[in-house]
């Protein structure tokens, strides 16, 4: 677990489909409206493309596809979380498209529950823990791992192998 996650207990929650996730705010640099995205041909499907972030090129990941959720078109609520993640000793900046950003909340360590090994469609190493809020579970993501790994969700059927 990263040092920031230990020191900061503020989380930004966001929605994908009807599931709620949260990312440690220490990892979130900013939130963008979705600008024109340039698709890079012949790249994996979960790569939405690249955008111009004030003169720099920012790769953007389609988080829904990455998480194995059905694709939808962007809405007014869709936005890009600009994240700074650690990969092989380096910090890389990337954008992640999410359906909607909810709120920033303080989560006490004691409120974080362990992830049940069964019953989630995500590999357990990607989830640091779960929090129950208003009868809904929010999954706290390990962003470093989620966005640097090829396969995030457990493929129930072997279909969907795309290149």
């Amino acid at each position, binding site marked *: 677990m990263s040092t920031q996650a230990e020191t900061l207990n503020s989380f930004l929650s966001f929605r994908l489909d009807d599931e709620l996730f949260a990312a440690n705010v220490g990892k979130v640099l900013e939130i963008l409206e979705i600008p*024109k995205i340039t698709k*890079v*041909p012949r*790249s994996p499907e979960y790569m939405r*493309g690249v955008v*111009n972030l004030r003169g720099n090129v920012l790769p953007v990941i389609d988080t829904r596809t990455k998480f194995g959720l059905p694709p939808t078109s962007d809405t007014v609520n869709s936005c890009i979380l600009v994240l700074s993640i650690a990969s092989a000793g380096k910090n*890389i900046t990337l954008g992640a498209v999410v359906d909607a950003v909810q709120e920033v909340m303080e989560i006490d360590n004691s409120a974080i529950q362990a992830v049940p090994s069964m019953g989630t469609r995500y590999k357990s190493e990607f989830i640091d823990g779960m929090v129950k809020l208003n009868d809904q579970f929010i999954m706290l993501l390990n962003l470093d791992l989620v966005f640097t790994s090829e396969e995030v969700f457990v493929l129930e059927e072997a279909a969907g192998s795309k290149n």
Partner: protein
Amino acid sequence: MTEKLLDIFLGEAQELIVEIEKAVLLLEQNQQDEHGISAIFRAMHTLKGSSGMFGFEAVSGITHHLESIYQDIRDGARAMDANVLAITLKTLDHLRNLMQDPHLGDAGVRANHEQLLTAILSLEDAHTSHHTANNTAPASANTAQQRSYYIYILPHPAILRNGTNILYLVDDLLALGEGTALPFFHQIPELAAIAPDTSYMGFEVVLATTKKEEDIQEVFMFVESDCDITIKSLADGNILSAIGKHEQIQNRDVAAALGYEGIKALAAHPKKKISKADKARSAGINNAASIRVSSERLDDLMNLVSELVTTQARLSLFSGENDSTELSNISENIEKITRRLRDNAFTMSLVPLESIVVRFQRLVSDLSKELHKDIEFTAVGMDTKIDKSIIEKLTDPLLHILRNSIDHGIENPEERKRRNKSPKGKLQLRSYYSGGNVIIEIADDGAGIDLTKVKEKAIAKGLIDGHAALSEKELTDLIFLPGFSTASVITGVSGRGVGMDVVRRNVSDIRGEIDIATRAGEGTTFIIKLPLTLSILDGLLVKIGDTDFILPLTSVAKCYEVKTAALESSFNQLIQLDEKRLPFFFLRNDFAITDHKPELSQVILVSYDGQQVGLVFDRIEGEYQAVLKPLGEFYQRQNEFSGATILGNGNVALVLDPNKLIGKLIDHYKNQQRYEYAG
């Protein structure tokens, strides 16, 4: 108008005339004295202005025309010559008379005036640049017709044997315009070893001409295959006067060519040229000729220049959308300045290859002792400059190639004697500019690569099919395959079969290409072609649907407009262009782009592996200077895109690497076929 003022004017005019006279006399000693030319120009300008003010129209008229000639000379658009000086002196005498008789009352003065005026006008007209009446017109207006070219001619050693006289070539070239030929000697042996029928020399010609590049090329029509020829445009207008007396030209080392960049640099810094007059002056301040700057600050400068280039692109886009002449003038000017600033800043971050040569010399001497070989190592053209980040990544591959040449290439002394070669092996590292590229060659006079051995080995290792019919080039390229080594004895130096594939990868990482030329028994040359810099690229902006792409201009050969339907219906991926059938890739399909299909598509020919291949785009937008930004780790596998760039409108364009793209597409289609056959 008071008498007093008129007196002041007449006094001043006398002084100016004397000043001009002095400068003209000095110029007769040294026609290239830039200070003299500027002094005359300034004095004439003042004289023209004040005489106009005092109604001395004859004076201002004649000085105006003479001034135009000097302006051209000062701007490098024409060369100074004795004619100009002679007529200037005559005019000065005439001006003295005019001061007494400003309205040409005297018939003799009038006749003289007419005569001089026609002489000056004909001088002005004789020169291609026809100056407009308005002396503040920008220099570019009158120099547009003339261009200066850099021409590099290196005849192959055997050229004299078919009766070609190289000097005639140079004469033919100079007949196209005004020029200067700078000979250099190439690998000249000792006197005793000189073969009279072998050419050891080459020429660099700086030519100012109104002719087109094709006309220059035509001169070489019959010797194209016998010479290495590079023709490059140096600048608009005539830059001969700027480089003519340049110190570096006069004291240059004739053993090596100055190179396009070398000449260009001289032309760009005419201030550095030293005339007799200011030689003494500059002697004292010579020490300040260079300063040290930390590379961090250079990087900062580079980043700022990159941002400026991007912002400038926005400006020209904006000015294109807003129909304002003034705005577009400003924008064009800024574009010119930005381009120059960019070139200037980038040459600053270039480092001569010399900085790494010492390591090579050390390697060669150590290795040749270890392997009991006698090797003479020479390095030529090490003042060739290249981006420092490229140099860092170049050292390892070069070391590896040198190791290979010493280990596998050059035979041991006994073997060499048996083959009637001098026991001393020759190994040369040479470098030169070729267009926007730097070429580095490592040549040995060793055994060469035994292609039959290569083939046997490749078959034994299962790298190729035993029945495969491979061309010589394909055979030599096998050495670059992973896990290939031909040394019969594995030494500690090289020959473990790791290496050449890594070398090729390293070189292609810095956008370079590597090639081998080999002859059994005569030696092997490795040729590495590198870009000058990695961070900026001159490209062609093209579109498919809504997506922008940049193709490096260096790889674009030709563009054609073709009906989209004709491309789509082609079943064998071949298209007939200029009576040639060429393979093409309909990138719309390969990139899975479906929006806005146009009726006409653009086929852009790029060269791939020695042949031309068409890439099909929707539209060509124009040239574009792309500041390369990395795509990052997420797109590592999409290395057919060497990066991205931000366009003026804020969109991101993808920079294509045509070689990698075509290679990948060919692999893709091959695999597809295999599946089809299997299925």
